[in-house]
């Protein structure tokens, strides 16, 4: 009897385990989700991966009444509460994915309303049908007229814009004035730009830098974003094949040459200890490809006081961006009216956006506001020796190519940089590195069956 009971229990459990797996709902990108516009909830849940957006809302959204002591809640004048769900980048997607699974069944006030998505994984959520078109909550094309058009195209699905950026992250090449004088004979940004305007010239400058005892770049991943933002097609177009772009092959070739010739300092990735130390005043690295936040915050911090005034920026060989993010409205949101108002203030209101840019030294997604700041004779950065970098950012921002963003960007970027590190160091051959990338990417994305390399 007992045995029978036990086996019955076993069977029940197995069937249960089976059923839990079957519950997954399958959605395609074409049927865009709808917002629940019947009535407004009392809590707006916003998922972010850092505090930047929270600070923008708390400090610049006119409807804010007060902020709770622990900073987790922001109260609006009409009594509605914004609840901030902050998860660091490393766990952001895991936690978000868990929460989104309950999005259809959760109580209205528990549902996620806004998500801050980084460019590297934004498409994953767009393709999964999580994001409501902004037109559904009443934000029109006219409202968004001030935004840089490419930031809107990047997040358009079936002709409908599904998100909006507060900031744009155009990239520039930040270089050390003192080293530029020694190597190129000048530190004037225009003249330096002339000498670095394409990759051949860049290589020449690297050779000169080496002769003078400097490194052109810090390591392997430094130039990666410049090449990966200029690919001719997305990494994956059919959910089965990774197509490695010729632009990526150029990065591999260049990085190998630079490593063998001693043009770089062999730091294995960005944001490593070695990489950050290469930005200090006593380091010997010529320059870094960095975007807005990188130059205004990261570089300033790493360069330290001694580096103040010793840096300048130029456009470099190709336009690129690094770290753009979009605010999207989650499906089944119960606060469409509030979200509309919030997004209009932070992503469409020129005055508010201009104020944000001036106060926190960031590049906001409003071309009119940024042009005004760029043309203001008072604009300029002390860190960059008085150079007006906003003007340069403003020239690069409209030229960024967001067309080839896909849901596989983050994984491809990570595995590409890691897999080829050993090749650059000379530990493995090019073919072995390619195999390593293929293995890694197939592990990460089980649906990928084939990896195509350009001839």
């Amino acid at each position, binding site marked *: 009897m007992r045995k029978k009971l036990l086996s019955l229990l076993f069977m029940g459990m197995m069937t249960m385990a089976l059923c839990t797996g079957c519950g997954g709902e*399958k959605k395609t990108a074409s049927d865009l989700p709808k917002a629940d516009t019947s009535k407004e909830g009392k809590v707006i849940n916003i998922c972010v991966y850092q505090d930047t957006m929270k600070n923008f809302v708390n400090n610049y959204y006119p409807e804010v009444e007060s902020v709770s002591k622990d900073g987790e809640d922001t109260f609006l004048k009409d009594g509605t509460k914004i609840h901030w769900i902050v998860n660091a980048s490393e766990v952001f997607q895991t936690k978000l994915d868990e929460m989104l699974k309950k999005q259809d069944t959760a109580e209205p006030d528990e549902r996620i309303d806004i998500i801050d998505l980084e460019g590297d994984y934004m498409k994953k959520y767009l393709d999964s049908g999580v994001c409501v078109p902004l037109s559904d909550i009443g934000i029109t094309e006219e409202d968004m007229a001030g935004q840089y058009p490419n930031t809107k195209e990047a997040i358009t699905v079936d002709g409908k814009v599904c998100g909006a950026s507060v900031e744009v992250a155009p990239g520039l090449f930040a270089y050390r004035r003192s080293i530029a004088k020694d190597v190129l004979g000048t530190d004037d940004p225009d003249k330096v730009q002339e000498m670095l305007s394409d990759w051949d010239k860049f290589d020449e400058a690297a050779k000169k830098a080496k002769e003078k005892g400097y490194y052109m770049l810090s390591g392997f991943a430094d130039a990666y974003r410049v090449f990966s933002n200029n690919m001719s097609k997305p990494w994956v177009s059919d959910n089965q094949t990774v197509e490695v772009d010729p632009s990526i092959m150029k990065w591999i070739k260049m990085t190998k040459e630079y490593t063998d010739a001693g043009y770089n300092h062999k730091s294995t990735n960005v944001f490593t*200890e070695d990489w950050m130390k290469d930005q200090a005043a006593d380091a010997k690295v010529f320059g870094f490809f960095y975007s807005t936040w990188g130059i205004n915050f990261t570089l300033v911090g790493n360069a330290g006081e001694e580096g103040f005034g010793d840096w300048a920026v130029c456009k470099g060989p190709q336009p690129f961006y690094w770290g753009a993010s979009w605010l999207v409205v989650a499906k089944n949101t119960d606060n469409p009216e509030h979200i509309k108002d919030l997004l209009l203030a932070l992503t469409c209101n020129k005055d508010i956006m201009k104020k944000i840019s001036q106060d926190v030294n960031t590049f906001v997604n409003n071309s009119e506001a940024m042009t005004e700041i760029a043309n203001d004779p008072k604009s300029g950065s002390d860190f960059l020796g008085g150079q007006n970098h906003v003007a340069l950012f403003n020239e690069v921002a409209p030229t960024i190519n967001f067309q080839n963003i896909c849901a596989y960007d983050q994984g491809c970027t990570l595995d590409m940089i890691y897999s080829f590190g050993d090749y650059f160091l000379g530990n493995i051959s090019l073919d072995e590195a390619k195999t390593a990338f293929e293995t890694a990417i197939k592990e990460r994305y089980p649906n990928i069956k084939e990896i195509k390399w350009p001839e």
Partner: protein
Amino acid sequence: MSQKRQKKRKRSYYKRWGYIYTLPFFVGFFVFFFIPLVSTILYSFYEYYTIGLVEVGPNFVGLDNFISLLQTELPKYSLNTLILWLGGFLPQLAVALLLASWFTDARLMICGEKFFRMILYMPGMIMASAWAMMFFTLFSNAGPVNSLLMDSGTVSEPVSFMSSVAGTRVLICFMFFIMNLGNSVILLSATIMGLDRDIYESARIDGCSHRRAFFKVVVPSLRPVISYIIITSMVSGIQMFDLPQIFTDGQGSPNRTSMTLIMYLNRHLLGNNYGLAGALSVYLFLVSGILCFFIYRILNQREE
């Protein structure tokens, strides 16, 4: 008659408490161990992963997951795991035996022996992840170890420890060694102190050297403790994950020569590939089971 029945009922009433008291363990075991175990084994026969947020499967695929795992570099990762474990464990056992013999040797008259034992135990109290991060910083190209080497004139260029196979493996083994050393020393010296000193003393009086007496008299009496240390260390060796994972940023670099089995398992969880990860877990379960069986037999033989 009725009194008898009452007595009987009372006894069975007390008997029931035993079950109730042990119930929390069984409930916990069932929910947190048994159900995951069964579902892992079950999923290993299915194709089951996610693309973005879309779940694929579970579709029954038979033994496909097991077969496709055999076509990967699984032997390489098994060998890595073995090398990293033995590289840390063998020195750990040897040094622990040596230190334990010193600490318990009355003739050496070591001062502050308790203090040293505490110092040795301290590394084990630090989290493995903290160790890995500390070593990563210490041995990076611009780290303090390289500055020291360069300032002292030993090397002219910074040594890239983590880009060589030997460098990475030795450092991971060393962390494993230093973390587990203190525990073994305490276990061994406590056992040695509990041994009957008479045999050892008489061997010494008969003219046996300290070393000989140690290996011929003390070590054989330590067998049960040494077996215990081997088993616990092997279990943590098979499960080695946090040290190499954090030390190599999850890559098992260079070229996956320090990627352990659990790190490889973790790679499959990036794509929520429950099917393949489940199959790998089943392999690990089988290997651990076989190893446990052998060690259990060896242990039992010795007791006989």
